[in-house]
C-alpha cells in the first residue's frame, strides 16, 4: 500500500496513540507520535506532517490549545510560519467547544483549528474526516 500522507498524533494517552496508529496505518497513512505539546512542536519542524491530530487536555490543561495557537500564530516572525497551513484536527474528551471556558478571552479566533471532534471517534468516521480535510474533493 503506498504511503498517502504523514499524520502527527499529539496525545498523552499512549494507548489511544497506538489505536490511531493501527487504524491510520491500515489505511496507508504514515504515523508520527508525540506525547505532549513540546514534543509535538519539535516533530512538526522535524517531519513536516500533512495533518496534526491534537488532544486538548494533556499534562497541562491547555497544552493542545497552545500548540494550535503557536502553529497558527499571526506574528510574521514566528518560527512556525511555514507550518501554519498544516490542517489541525482536535480530538478531545471535552464534549462541547464552550467547555474551553478558560480561554474565552482570546475572542473569536480562540480555537484556530480546522475541525473539532469528540473522543471516542469511530474508526470509519476518523478516516472519513481525515480524507475530507486532506482531499477536499474526496
Amino acid at each position, binding site marked *: 500500500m503506498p504511503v498517502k500522507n504523514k499524520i502527527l498524533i499529539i496525545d498523552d494517552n499512549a494507548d489511544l496513540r497506538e*489505536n490511531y496508529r493501527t487504524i491510520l496505518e491500515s489505511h496507508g497513512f504514515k504515523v508520527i507520535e508525540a506525547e505532549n505539546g513540546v514534543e509535538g512542536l519539535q516533530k512538526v519542524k522535524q517531519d513536516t506532517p500533512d495533518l496534526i491530530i491534537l488532544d486538548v487536555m494533556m499534562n497541562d490543561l491547555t497544552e493542545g490549545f497552545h500548540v494550535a495557537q503557536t502553529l497558527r500564530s499571526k506574528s510574521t516572525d514566528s518560527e512556525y510560519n511555514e507550518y501554519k497551513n498544516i490542517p489541525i484536527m482536535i480530538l478531545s474528551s471535552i464534549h*462541547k*467547544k464552550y467547555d474551553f471556558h478558560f480561554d474565552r478571552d482570546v475572542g473569536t479566533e480562540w480555537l484556530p483549528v480546522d475541525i473539532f471532534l469528540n473522543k*471516542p471517534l469511530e*474508526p470509519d468516521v476518523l478516516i472519513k474526516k481525515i480524507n475530507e480535510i486532506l482531499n477536499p474533493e474526496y
Partner: protein
Amino acid sequence: MEKLEKQFQKHVKWLIHIRWGWIVFVSLAIITFHQIFSIDLPILQLIILLFVLGIYNLTFVLLMRKLTFKKFEKFASLLIRSQLFIDFLLLALFLHYTGGIENPIAIYFIFHVIMSSFLLNKNYAYQHTIFGVLLFISIALLEYFSVIPHYPVFDYTQNPLFTNTFYVICVLLAFSSALFFATFMGTTISGEIKRKDKILEKANKVLQEQDKIKSEYVLMISHDLHEPIATVQNCIQIVLDGYCGNCDPGVTQTLKRATKWTDKMIHLIRDLASLSNLNVMVSINLEPLCINKTITNILKDFDQQTSQKSINLKYKKSSRNTWIAADKEIFSHILTNLISNAIKYTPENGTIGIDLSGHKTKVLLEIWDTGIGIPAKYQEKVFQDFFRTPDAIKYEKDGTGLGLSIVKLGLSLHNAKIKIKSPHDKLPKLHTGTSFILEFPAIKEIE
C-alpha cells in the same frame, strides 16, 4: 443594578396605586359626607386637589412607561423623596379643607410616615416626619390665629375645638409624638428587615460559591472519567471493525454488549460535564444570531435518526425577524437536546414540528411532537437533574435525565423562558404529544 431598578419600580408603582386608592377613598368620603350627612364642604377646593393629585399621579404613570431606569438612576432616591413630600403636602391640604385639627383623618399622617420609614433611609425618614409635624403644626396654628380660614366640618358650636388652646396643645403633642414614635418603630423594623436581608443575601452568595466549587469539581471529575472510558470504547471499536483480525461471532456479540454500556457511560459523563460547565458559567458571550439559519443547519444532523423511525420532521420558518443574542454552541446544544428527546419519545411514523415565530420584542420557538407526552404533575419536575417520568423510563430505558436540566440552564444564560404544553393544541385529541415553547428576547435584525 437590576435589583435597584426592580426595587425602585416596585416602590413607585406602589405609591401610584396608593394614590389612586386615595383618590377613590376621598371622592367617596366627600360624596357620603356632602350628600348623605349634608355636611358643608369646600367642594371646589377639594375637587381641585383631587384633580391635581390625579394629574400628578398620571405623570408618574407615564414617566415610568417612557423613561428607562438608567436615565434617572442618579436621582432615583430624590424622586421617591420628592413624591413622598408632595404626597404629604397634598394630604395636609386635604386636612386643612376638611376641618384641620378637628378631622380624625390626621391619623393618615401616621401611615404616611410608616410608609416613608420603609422606603427611605433612617435620616430621610426622620426629615420626612419633621416635615409632616411642621405641616400639621402650621395648619393648626395658622387656623388658631386666623391667619388662614378654618373650614368647619364637625364643630359648629360657639367654642370650636380649633381655637381651644388646651385641645390644640394636646392634639399637637399627641400627634407629634405619635408621628415620631411611628417613625422610630418603622425605621427599627425596616432596619431589622434590611439587616436580615443582607444576612440572607450573604448566605445565598456563599451557597452559590459552594455550588460553583461543586460544579467545578464535577467538571474535573467528568473530564478525568471521560478519557479512560473513551479509550476503552475506542479499543473495542477497533476490534469490532476488524483492525485486529476477524473475531468469533460470540466475541463480537459480547463486545457489542460492552460498547452499549461504555456508550451509556460516555453519555452520562458528557451530560454531567455540560451541566457542570453551564453551572460554572456566570455569563456567556452573547452574539447576534439569526436562528432561522441556525435551526436549518442543526436539523440536517437529524436526517438519519428521523428516517430510521419514519418520523416526519416539519420546520416552519418565520418571515419576520428572528435575531437573538446567543452563544451559538449553547443554543445548538439546547435545540439538539430538545429534538433528540422528541425523536426518542415519538413512536414510528410520528411527526415532530419546529415552529419559529418572530415578534416585536421576542422570538418564539416551539418544538412539538406526537410522542408519549409529559403528564401535568411531572411538567415542573422534568427540569430537575436526573429526573425521568415513569412513562419515559418505560418507553426508553436509556437516558441520563440531564438533557432538560441542560436545556433549562442554557436558556437561563440567554434570559430565555421555557414552557411545556402536554397535550398540546396542535394535535387531534387521540394523541398526547409534548410541546416545548422557548421564548427569547428579540434583538434588532442585522443585515
